[in-house]
């Protein structure tokens, strides 16, 4: 049986007063997408740095494809592709030249590197921009070229550190699609993200990290069940009895907000919206607004650790997670 792509045990890493990793463990299975989910400063990039032989940890053991990252760093590097948090491309070289250079440094012959570069440029929709300086690329193009550079030698394990942060929804979808294709081609992917829905979309397994420790691990579905599911928020107009509305919808009233919160059952949010709309129709009540709200990273952390994500100083981070996702159930839900 081949060695697992990655096993990490008891990683510790301090930067002065800051503890970046605090007894972190991780096991990545072959052929899967494993997401490392955590807020700013959780230790995601530090962990990836240790896995990719860029950062030495103070204590703990990491094996990548069976090789120890300290003793056998070169063998580890031959097995991995790294796409770091910031794009790391030569801005002056053309897109194709970047790929060919990284391929040649991986030991590929010139012709083989060129062919592989063309293949990747085509696959990532960069063929038209292949002979332009990277400094003329948009953020999304850079990110895709960056990922292509990490794939030049078909690594066994690819690290993607926040691959979609800062991308618009369309570019994000392109990156997601690329990740799915990478996995279909047989590469194992470890990706870090701050976004619950990204982990949900891509990952087979999710490890939630905060303050350098694993706070939860499981399948996306399992984690979401532990974190509480979707919720439907119904806003009643003035003059409607919110308490009565709550009991007829099977929810909880928040009179101050004139709002009723209905927890979705195991069938999920869409079914809950349908049920709410049907009930409102039967009752003949016209409401101001219906929102489907999914759990946010804040809530994940609240339910997992009892505290929200914090900065090093212990102050809650307001922007640490994406704002609540608002689904277009609103318009359709008016009755």
């Amino acid at each position, binding site marked *: 049986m081949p060695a697992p792509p990655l096993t990490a045990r008891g990683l510790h890493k301090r930067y002065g007063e800051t503890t970046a990793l605090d007894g972190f463990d991780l096991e990545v299975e072959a052929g899967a997408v494993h997401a490392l989910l955590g807020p700013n400063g959780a230790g995601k990039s530090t962990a990836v740095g240790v896995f*990719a032989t*860029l*950062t030495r940890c103070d204590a703990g053991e990491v094996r990548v494809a069976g090789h120890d990252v300290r003793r056998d760093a070169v063998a580890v590097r031959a097995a991995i592709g790294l796409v*770091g948090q910031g794009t*790391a491309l*030569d801005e*002056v*070289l053309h897109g194709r030249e970047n790929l060919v250079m990284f391929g040649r*440094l991986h030991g590929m012959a010139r012709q083989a590197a060129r062919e592989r570069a063309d293949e990747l440029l085509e696959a990532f929709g960069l063929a038209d921009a292949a002979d332009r300086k990277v400094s003329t690329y948009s953020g999304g193009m850079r990110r895709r070229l960056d990922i292509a550079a990490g794939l030049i030698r078909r690594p066994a394990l690819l690290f993607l550190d926040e691959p979609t942060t800062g991308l618009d929804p369309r570019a994000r979808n392109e990156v997601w699609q690329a990740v799915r294709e990478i996995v279909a081609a047989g590469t194992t992917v470890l990706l870090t993200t701050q976004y619950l829905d990204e982990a949900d979309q891509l990952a087979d397994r999710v490890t939630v990290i905060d303050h350098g420790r694993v706070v939860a691990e499981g399948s996306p579905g399992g984690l979401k069940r532990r974190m509480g599911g979707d919720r439907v928020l119904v806003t009643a107009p003035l003059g409607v009895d919110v308490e009565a509305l709550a009991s007829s919808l099977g929810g909880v009233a928040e009179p101050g907000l004139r709002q009723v919160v209905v927890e979705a059952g195991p069938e999920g949010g869409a079914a809950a919206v349908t049920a709410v709309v049907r009930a409102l129709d039967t009752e003949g009540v016209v409401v101001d607004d219906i929102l489907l709200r999914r759990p946010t990273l804040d809530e994940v952390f609240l339910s997992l650790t009892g505290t929200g994500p914090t900065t090093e100083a212990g102050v809650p981070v307001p922007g640490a997670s994406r704002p609540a996702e608002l689904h277009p159930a609103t318009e359709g839900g008016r009755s």
Partner: protein
Amino acid sequence: MTAVAATLRQSWIITLRDLKHWQREPWTPVFSVLFSVMLVLMFGYLLGGAITIPGGGDYLPYLLPGIFALSMMFGIEATMTAVANDTKKGVTDRFRALPISGAAVPLGRAGADLLNSAVELTVLLVGGVLIGWRATGGVGGTLLAVALLLWFRFAMLVIGVFLGLTIRGEGGVTAVQVLVWPAGFLSNAFVAPESMPAWLGLVAEWSPLSATAAACRQLFGNPTGASGGFVADNAVLLAVLWPAVLVAVFTPLTARAYRRLAR
């Protein structure tokens, strides 16, 4: 492929990449040549009339070897800026995550910078000949002088890589750009140390830049501005030793700076 051959191959790939930067953005090397030309015009023609060389001789043939050596020293900035940029942009980390020899990136950088400086030196030598400077020390002496200039450049290169890895940010780069000036003037590049106050003259006489410039003057058969003494008598030896000392000191420091990136 042996480890050495693999390292050389990887270094050459990096050298080609670094050279492509000069080719795509030629302003850095072009300005650096223009800068040396400007120094020759300023000192050779504007100020030179007021400068006399101890022991006699014209100022221009005294000045030019000093400018050659100085331009090699200024190469430290180009090296440092390129290394600092790669580190800042994350390119250094990407190289570090590749299965290549740890020596390949600095060696590649060295190859590119030395080639670049060799071209610059050629332009300056030819320019010197055009304004009347002559190397009269024979082919052997002339070639040895060029080799010593590039050897000095190599030492500056090692220091430049070290600085590029250690000082981050624009402040550090500016500090070095400013500090090379006193280092340039506190030498025999522009005037003979004998004309300086005694203790300053001593420091200037013993600077690595002075050793290379003095050796070149002797080998090119140009006025040396020195009337004897240990440094003047052993200029070529010092021009070999000084860079060797700098390389011996800064190579381990540079290796340590690379390792510290993993902190």
